[in-house]
C-alpha cells in the first residue's frame, strides 16, 4: 500500500489526517492481547491488504483490518480485535447517554430536554422522568428492527430498506416509536364489571358498591394505561358510576342530593359523597405514574345527550339485568362538569379530557335542547372541553381524537364488545410538505408520488399489525383477550402533517376557497382510496390530522435544514394558519367543515382560540354555525391565567393577577388535546403559543 496524505472520516462526521501509526498500534495491541508474537513483516503483510481511499470511515478501516487478520490466518487475534471494537462501541453508547444525561439535567424543562419524544404532559423534570428518557433510543432501534424484519418477510428487503430510507429522510414519521405498546384505545369496562382486574393481571374482584367502584376504577385505568402508549378513554365512566350510586342511595338519588348520607360527625350529604368520589378519582388519575415515565395517564371521558345515550346504551344491561337510567346519568354528567370546572380554579387538572356528544337536526339545532343549552352554558362558564356533533348517531368521538363508526360494526355488550370500544393500534405519519415539494422539484405529479408513499405506509402498517398479532398469540396483550379492546375495531392510522404548508408551497391561499378545497380533497381522498383498498375483514385504516405536539416542530426543523420551503417553526395541526388574524371564527369553522373533513376518517379537532369568553347565547350561535358547516369536532380555547406568585387561577386571559396584581403570570392553554401550563411545553411550542392569535369576540 502506498502511503499518501489521506483524510479519514471519524465517527462524529469530522475529518482527520490518516495515520498509519494508529492502525499499526491497534494491530500490535490485538496481537499482544492474545500473546501472539508479531514482527514487522507480519504487520506489513496485514496492512498491505487494506484498501484506503480518501474520506474512508474509521468503521471501514476497522472492518478491513478484521478481514486482513483472518485472511492471514490470525483468527484468535481477529476475535480479540472484534471484541475490542465491541467494548468501545458500548463505551461510546454509555458516553452518549452520559452526555444526554447532563444536557437533560441542564435543560429548561422536561419537554425541551427530551430528545426523542417530547411530551408536554410531563410536569416536572426529575430523576423519574430522566429514567424514562434514557432507554428511548434503544426502543426506537428495537422497534425499527422488529418492523423491518417483518416487512422483509412479507414484502422483501427492498421495501424494508425503502421504509428506513423514507423514515430517516423524514418523508414519513413513526409516532410513538419510543414505546412498545399499541397506541390508544377507548375501552369498554364491561369485562371489569364482570370479573374485576384478574384477567389483565390484577388481583381485584368485580366492583360491588360505590366505594369499590371508585377505588377499583382508578386501579383499572392505571393498569390499562400501562399497556397503551397513548390515551385510555372510558366513555362509560359516569354511566357505571350512576349505577353504583343508585345501588347505594336509590335510583332517584339525584332528586334529593341534599339528603344526609352518612352518620359521621361531618354529616355528609349524598352530593358531598359523590363529589368526594369525583375528587378521589380525578386527583389520583392526574398523578404522575411510575409505569408511564412519570407522566399522568391520558384519561378521556364522554358525555351524551339523550339521543346519543339511547343509541349507544339502548341495548345495555348491567349484570343484575337492569338498564342504565338516563335521568340519573343526565344529572350526574352535569354535576361532574360543574364540579370539574370549579375544581380547575383551584388546581391545574389536565385529565380527564372530556367530549360532549350532541345530535343535531337538519337545521343545525340540537335535537336534545336541554343538552345543547347546557353545553353552551358550560362553555360560557369557562369550562374547556370538546364537542362532537353529528346529524345522526352513526359515529362518536370518545377519545381525544378518534372518530368511531358505530353502525357498521354492530355491538353487543353480552359479547363484551362494546359500541364504545375502539382505538388506534399505530400511527404512521406522512410529512406532506416534504413529499409534495420533493415531487414538484423533481417534476413529478405530486399525487402520483404521494400514492407511492401512502402505499408504503399501508404495507408498513400491515407489518406492524402482524407483529401485534404475534404478541397477542403469545398472550402479551391481555386488554384484547379480556375484551377491554376489540382488536377488530382498532384502526391502523395514517397520520398527516404539513398539509397547510404544502398548500402554501403550491401557492394556494389558505382561506375557504375552491382551489384549496380541491387540493385538500385530492390528498385526503387519495389516502382514503388506499385505506379502502387495504381494508379487509380483520384490518381497518383511518386517516387523521395528527395533533403535532412535537412532530410539527421536528418536521419544520428537518425540512428547513434540507432546503425545503418552511413558512413557520411548527407545522399546523389545523386546516388554517394558526397565526393568520385575517380569518374570522366563521372562516375557521368553514375550514374544518364537512367538505374539508369528509375524508378525514380519524378526525381532527378544531381548536377555536378566543381571547375572551362569550355568553351562553353567543356559544349557542356558534354551535349552530358548527352544525351548519358540518364541523363535527371542536373545542373553544381561552387561555386561563395562573399567577406564579400567589397561585390564583383565573378563567380569563389576563396580563395581571386579579388577586395579588402580580405580572408574573403563566397561562393554561390547549395547544394540542391537553390543557397544560404554557411553560411546560417545549420551547418551540411555547413560541407557537405566543404567536397564536386569540380572536376577539366580535369577529
Amino acid at each position, binding site marked *: 500500500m502506498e502511503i499518501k496524505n489521506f483524510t479519514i472520516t471519524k465517527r462524529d462526521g469530522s475529518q482527520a489526517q490518516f495515520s498509519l501509526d494508529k492502525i499499526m498500534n491497534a494491530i500490535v495491541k490485538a496481537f499482544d492481547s492474545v500473546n501472539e508474537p508479531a514482527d514487522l513483516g507480519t504487520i506489513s503483510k496485514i496492512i498491505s491488504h487494506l484498501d484506503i481511499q480518501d474520506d474512508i470511515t474509521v468503521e471501514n478501516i476497522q472492518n478491513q483490518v478484521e478481514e486482513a487478520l483472518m485472511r492471514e490466518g490470525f483468527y484468535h487475534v481477529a476475535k480479540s480485535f472484534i471484541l475490542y471494537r465491541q467494548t468501545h462501541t458500548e463505551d461510546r453508547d454509555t458516553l452518549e447517554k452520559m452526555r444526554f444525561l447532563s444536557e437533560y439535567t441542564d435543560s429548561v424543562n422536561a419537554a425541551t430536554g427530551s430528545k426523542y419524544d417530547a411530551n408536554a404532559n410531563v410536569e416536572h423534570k426529575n430523576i423519574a422522568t430522566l429514567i424514562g428518557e434514557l432507554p428511548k433510543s434503544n426502543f426506537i432501534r428495537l422497534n425499527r428492527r422488529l418492523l423491518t424484519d417483518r416487512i422483509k418477510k412479507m414484502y422483501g428487503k427492498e421495501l424494508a430498506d425503502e421504509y428506513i430510507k423514507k423514515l430517516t429522510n423524514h418523508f414519513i414519521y413513526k409516532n410513538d416509536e419510543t414505546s412498545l405498546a399499541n397506541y390508544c384505545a377507548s375501552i369498554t369496562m364491561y369485562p371489569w364489571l364482570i370479573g374485576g382486574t384478574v384477567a389483565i393481571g390484577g388481583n381485584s374482584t368485580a366492583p360491588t358498591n360505590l366505594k369499590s367502584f371508585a377505588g377499583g376504577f382508578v386501579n383499572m385505568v392505571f393498569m390499562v394505561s400501562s399497556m397503551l402508549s397513548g390515551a385510555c378513554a372510558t366513555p362509560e365512566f359516569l354511566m357505571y358510576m350512576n349505577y353504583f350510586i343508585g345501588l347505594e342511595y336509590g335510583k332517584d338519588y339525584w332528586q334529593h342530593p341534599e339528603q344526609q348520607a352518612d352518620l359521621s360527625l361531618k354529616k355528609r350529604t349524598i352530593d358531598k359523597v359523590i363529589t368526594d368520589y369525583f375528587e378521589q378519582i380525578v386527583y389520583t388519575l392526574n398523578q404522575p405514574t411510575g409505569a408511564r415515565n412519570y407522566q399522568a395517564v391520558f384519561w378521556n371521558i364522554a358525555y351524551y345527550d339523550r339521543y346519543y345515550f339511547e343509541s349507544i346504551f339502548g341495548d345495555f344491561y348491567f349484570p343484575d339485568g337492569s338498564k342504565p337510567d338516563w335521568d340519573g346519568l343526565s344529572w350526574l354528567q352535569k354535576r361532574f362538569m360543574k364540579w370539574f370546572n370549579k375544581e380547575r380554579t383551584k388546581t391545574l387538572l389536565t385529565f380527564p379530557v372530556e367530549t360532549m356528544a350532541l345530535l343535531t337536526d337538519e337545521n343545525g339545532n340540537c335535537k336534545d335542547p336541554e343538552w345543547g343549552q347546557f353545553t353552551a352554558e358550560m362553555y360560557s362558564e369557562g369550562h374547556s372541553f370538546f364537542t362532537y356533533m353529528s346529524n345522526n348517531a352513526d359515529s362518536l368521538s370518545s377519545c381525544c381524537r378518534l372518530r368511531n363508526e358505530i353502525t357498521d360494526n354492530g355491538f353487543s355488550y353480552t359479547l363484551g364488545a362494546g359500541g364504545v370500544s375502539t382505538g388506534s393500534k399505530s400511527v404512521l405519519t406522512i410529512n406532506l410538505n416534504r413529499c409534495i415539494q420533493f415531487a414538484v422539484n423533481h417534476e413529478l405529479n405530486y399525487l402520483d408520488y404521494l400514492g407511492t408513499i401512502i402505499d408504503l405506509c399501508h404495507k408498513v402498517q400491515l407489518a406492524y399489525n402482524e407483529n401485534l398479532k404475534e404478541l397477542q398469540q403469545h398472550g402479551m396483550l391481555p386488554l384484547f383477550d379480556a375484551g377491554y379492546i376489540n382488536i377488530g375495531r382498532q384502526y391502523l392510522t395514517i397520520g398527516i402533517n404539513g398539509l397547510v404548508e404544502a398548500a402554501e408551497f403550491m*401557492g394556494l391561499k389558505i382561506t375557504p376557497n375552491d382551489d384549496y378545497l380541491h387540493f385538500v380533497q385530492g390528498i385526503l381522498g387519495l389516502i382514503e382510496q388506499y385505506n379502502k383498498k387495504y381494508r379487509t375483514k380483520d384490518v381497518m385504516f383511518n386517516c387523521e390530522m395528527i395533533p403535532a405536539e412535537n412532530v410539527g416542530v421536528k418536521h419544520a426543523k428537518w425540512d*428547513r435544514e434540507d432546503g*425545503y*420551503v418552511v*413558512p*413557520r417553526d411548527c407545522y399546523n395541526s389545523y386546516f388554517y394558519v394558526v*397565526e393568520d388574524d385575517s380569518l374570522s371564527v366563521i372562516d375557521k369553522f368553514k375550514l374544518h367543515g364537512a367538505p374539508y373533513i369528509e375524508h378525514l376518517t380519524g378526525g381532527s379537532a378544531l381548536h377555536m382560540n378566543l381571547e375572551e369568553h362569550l355568553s351562553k347565547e353567543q356559544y349557542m350561535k356558534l354551535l349552530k354555525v358548527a352544525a351548519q358547516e358540518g364541523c363535527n369536532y371542536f373545542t373553544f380555547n381561552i387561555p386561563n391565567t395562573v399567577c406564579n406568585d400567589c397561585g390564583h387561577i383565573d378563567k380569563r386571559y389576563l396580563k395581571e393577577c386579579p388577586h395579588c396584581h402580580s405580572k408574573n403570570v403563566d397561562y393554561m392553554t390547549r395547544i394540542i388535546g391537553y390543557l397544560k401550563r404554557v411553560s411546560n411545553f417545549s420551547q418551540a411550542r411555547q413560541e407557537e403559543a405566543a404567536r397564536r*392569535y386569540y380572536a376577539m369576540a366580535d369577529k
Partner: protein
Amino acid sequence: MTLAINISNCPCHCPGCHSHYLWEDVGLPLTTTAIDDFVEKYGTNLTCISFMGGDNDPRGVDHLAEYIHEEYPQLSVAWYSGRTVISALINKQNFDYIKIGPFIKHLGPLKNPTTNQRLYRRTEEGDFEDITSRFWKK
C-alpha cells in the same frame, strides 16, 4: 426613490434565496437614529423606505414604520415579509405597502402570474388591496 433596507438574521431561509448572507446575524443595528441618518443623507430625493425582511422581529419593524410616519410624513413605508400571512404583531396602518410570501422557485417572483407572493397597498379607507397583478406583463 425608494431606499431598501435589508434586515439580517432572516428566519425564513427560503431555498434559492438571493440574499443568503442575510440569514446570518450581520450588519449594524437598525435604530431610529440610523433612519434619521438615511433621511438626512438622501434628502428630498427619498420618497419611500422599504424594509426587506425583519421577520425575526415584526414588532421592531412596526416600531420603525410608526417612527417614520410620525417624523417624516412625506415618506411611504413598505415591508417585504417572507411569511405567508401578515404578522399579527404589527399595526398594518403604519405601512403603505406590504409584500408577503416566501420565494418559491416553481411559482416564480412577483412579476410571474403564478407567483405565491402578494403585494398589498393601503387604500385611503385603511384597507389593503392586492395590487400584485400590476406587475404581470399583459
